[in-house]
C-alpha cells in the first residue's frame, strides 16, 4: 500500500531541466559501463578473427571457428576446464561450510570483548592481498632458502616424511582450498551472523523450554533458517564457478609449471598464453567460451534457486 503511494508520488512528471540534470548525474556511470563493461563484449569478435595488431580489432580478417578448434584440440582444454570446476567447487564448499560453522560458534560466545576481538581476527584475512598471501604461504611451506618451513618442521616432529611442496602438484587443490578458507571463512561467517540476528528469539526460548541443548538449537533451528542465505551464496558461487579465482591462484603459483596439472585454471591459462604466445584470437576464444559457459551456469543456478526458494530468489 505504502509502496504504491510512494511510487505514484515518485512517478510525478519531471521537467526537461530535471531530466537533463539527472542525465548529467548518471552520465559518468553510464559511460563507464558502456566502455569498460560492454566495450569488451564487442571486442569479443576477436575470438572469430585472425587478429593482428596492425589491422586492429575490426580490420583483421575473419577466420570462423578456427580459434576455438585450435584451443579444443590443444590438449590443455580438458585439464584447465576440469581444474577450474574442481578448484572452484572446493573453494565454494569449503568456505561456505567454514563460514557457517564459524557463525554458529561465534553465536555462542558471550563475552562481548572476546567476541568482537575474535570476529576482527577471523575477518582480517579478507583484507590481505593475494600477493601477501602468496608470500606467507611460501614462508610456511618452503621456509628460507627452500628448506624447512613450519609445516615440514611439524612433519619432522611426528617422524613423517618432508615434502617439497612447490614440486608436488597433488597437494595444491587442498592447499589452495585451505587458503580460501583462511581468506573467506571469517568474511562468510559475518554474512551468516547478519542473517542469524534476524531470527526471532522466541523460537530459541520455546526450544529452551522444551529442553533443547545449545548444540540442538544450532543444528535444528539456526542451520535450517540459514538455508535461504546459503542458497543465495551457492547461486552466486556457482555463477562464478567458471571464473577461477585468478588473482589468488596466479599470485601463489606464478609460472611454476610443475604445478600446472592441478592448478592451471582458465584465467591463468589465458593470461599466460597472452603473455608468452601473444595469440589474441585464441585467448579471446577461450575467454568467450568461458563467458558463455559461465552464463549458462548462472542462469541454471538462478532457475534452480527460483524453483526451490521462491521467496529469496535473486532475480
Amino acid at each position, binding site marked *: 500500500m505504502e509502496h504504491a503511494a510512494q511510487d505514484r*508520488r*515518485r*512517478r510525478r512528471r519531471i521537467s526537461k531541466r*530535471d531530466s537533463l*540534470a539527472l542525465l548529467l*548525474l*548518471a552520465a*559518468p*556511470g553510464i559511460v*563507464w559501463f558502456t566502455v*569498460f563493461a560492454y*566495450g569488451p563484449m564487442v571486442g*569479443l569478435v576477436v575470438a572469430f578473427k585472425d587478429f593482428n*595488431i596492425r589491422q586492429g580489432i575490426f580490420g583483421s580478417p575473419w577466420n570462423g571457428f578456427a580459434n576455438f578448434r585450435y584451443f579444443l584440440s590443444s590438449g590443455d582444454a580438458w585439464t584447465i576446464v576440469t581444474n577450474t570446476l574442481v578448484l572452484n567447487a572446493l573453494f565454494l564448499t569449503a568456505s561456505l561450510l567454514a563460514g557457517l560453522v*564459524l557463525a554458529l560458534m*561465534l553465536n555462542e*560466545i*558471550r563475552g*562481548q570483548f572476546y567476541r568482537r*576481538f*575474535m570476529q*576482527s581476527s577471523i575477518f*582480517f584475512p579478507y*583484507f*590481505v*592481498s*593475494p*600477493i*601477501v598471501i602468496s608470500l606467507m604461504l611460501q*614462508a610456511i611451506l618452503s621456509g*628460507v*632458502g*627452500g*628448506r624447512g618451513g*613450519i609445516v615440514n618442521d611439524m612433519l619432522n616432529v611426528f617422524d613423517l616424511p618432508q615434502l*617439497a611442496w612447490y*614440486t608436488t602438484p597433488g597437494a595444491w587443490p587442498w592447499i589452495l582450498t585451505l587458503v580460501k578458507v*583462511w581468506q573467506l571463512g571469517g568474511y562468510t561467517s559475518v554474512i551468516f551472523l*547478519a*542473517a542469524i*540476528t*534476524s531470527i*526471532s*528469539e522466541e523460537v530459541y526460548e520455546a526450544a529452551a523450554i522444551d529442553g533443547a541443548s545449545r*548444540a540442538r538449537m*544450532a543444528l535444528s533451528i539456526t542451520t535450517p533458517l*540459514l538455508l535461504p*542465505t546459503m542458497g*543465495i*551464496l551457492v547461486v*552466486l*558461487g556457482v555463477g562464478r564457478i567458471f571464473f577461477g579465482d585468478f*588473482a589468488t591462484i596466479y*599470485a601463489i603459483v*606464478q*609460472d611454476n609449471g610443475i604445478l600446472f596439472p592441478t592448478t592451471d585454471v582458465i584465467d591463468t591459462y*589465458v593470461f599466460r598464453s597472452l603473455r608468452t604466445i601473444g595469440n589474441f584470437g585464441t585467448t*579471446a576464444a577461450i575467454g568467450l567460451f568461458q563467458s558463455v559457459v*559461465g*552464463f549458462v551456469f548462472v542462469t541454471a543456478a538462478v532457475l534452480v534457486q527460483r524453483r526451490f526458494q521462491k521467496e529469496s530468489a535473486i532475480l
Partner: protein
Amino acid sequence: MSTSELAPELTSPAGSIAGPGQRTARRRRSLRGRLEPFTVVSYVGVSLFGLFCLIPLWMIIAGSLTDESALARTGYSLFPHPFSLRAYELLFSGQSLFGGYAASLFITVVGTALSIYCTASLAWVIARRLPLVSRPLTIFSYIPMLFHGGLVPLYLLVTQVLSLTNSWFAVILPIMMAPFLVLVAVSFFRALPEEVIDAARIDGAGELRIFFQIVLPLSKPILAVLGLFYAVTYWNEWFMPLLFLSDPSRYPLQLILQNLIANVTNAAALPGATAAQASAPVYQLRFAMTVLTIAPILFAYPFAQRFFVKGITLGATKG
C-alpha cells in the same frame, strides 16, 4: 576480476533486523545458566581459527625483524632473535618504497573518489524509479555481473584503443565500478525518507541540488561502505598493474612486492639452490616489504572493520 569478489548480494530470511543493543540484552537473558558442551567447543573452535588467521601475519612481522643469518640457519621463530632492522633501513634508504607508496596512494585515493562518485550518482538515478529510465538502467548495470568480455578484449581496449599503458588510470578505470555495489547503493537510497526529498522539491530545489545537498549528506553510511570496499580493492590490486604498467618507477606496492617474490621464487622452491642468495637479506627484505604493504590496512583496520560488517549486513538485509 577482484571486484566480482566483493560482497555477494543477500536477502535476509525473515523480517527486520534487531539492533545490536537489543540483541545482546536478549542474548544475555536467554543464556543465563550452565555452560553447555557446545559452548565450550565453540570457544575452543573460534579461538583456534583466530590463531590460524593471525599466526601467518605474526610470522611475517617477526620474520621482518629477524636477522637474515638467523632466518637462514634456524628458520622461523615466533620471536625475532637476533633482532634486526636492517631490511627496513634498506627499504627506507631506497627510492622504490616511496615510489610504491605514491603509486598505491594515487590509485587508491583517486580511484576510490571516482568510484564513489560514479556509483552513488548512477545509483541515485536508478533509485528515483523514473519511468522508462530506472528499469532499463538497472538491467544495464546488472548484465555485466553475469556476462563479461574477459581479459583479451579488456587488454586490447586499454592498450590499443585508450592507449593507457603506463598510466595509473589503466589500473583505476577497468575496476572503477562494481555492479553489485551499484545495486547495494540503490537499495540504500530507496530506503531514505521520501518526505525530506519532497520537502526540498517543494522548496524549489533542482535535481542536482537535491542530490548533492540532501541525499549525499544523508547517505554517509553507504558512502563509507562503498569507499571501504573500493579502497581495499584498489589497494590490493596487482593484476591490472601487472598487465598495464611496464615502467618500474610507476609500480604500486603490490607489484614491487610481487617482483621481489617472483625473482627468486623458482630458485627458492628447489633445495640447495639458494646458498648464494642467503648472503643478501632477501627474505628479511621481502617480509619487511610485506609488512609495509599491509601496514596501512592494519592502521585503518579497527575503524574499517566496523563499516565492513555494516556493509555486508546492509547487503544482507536490503537485497
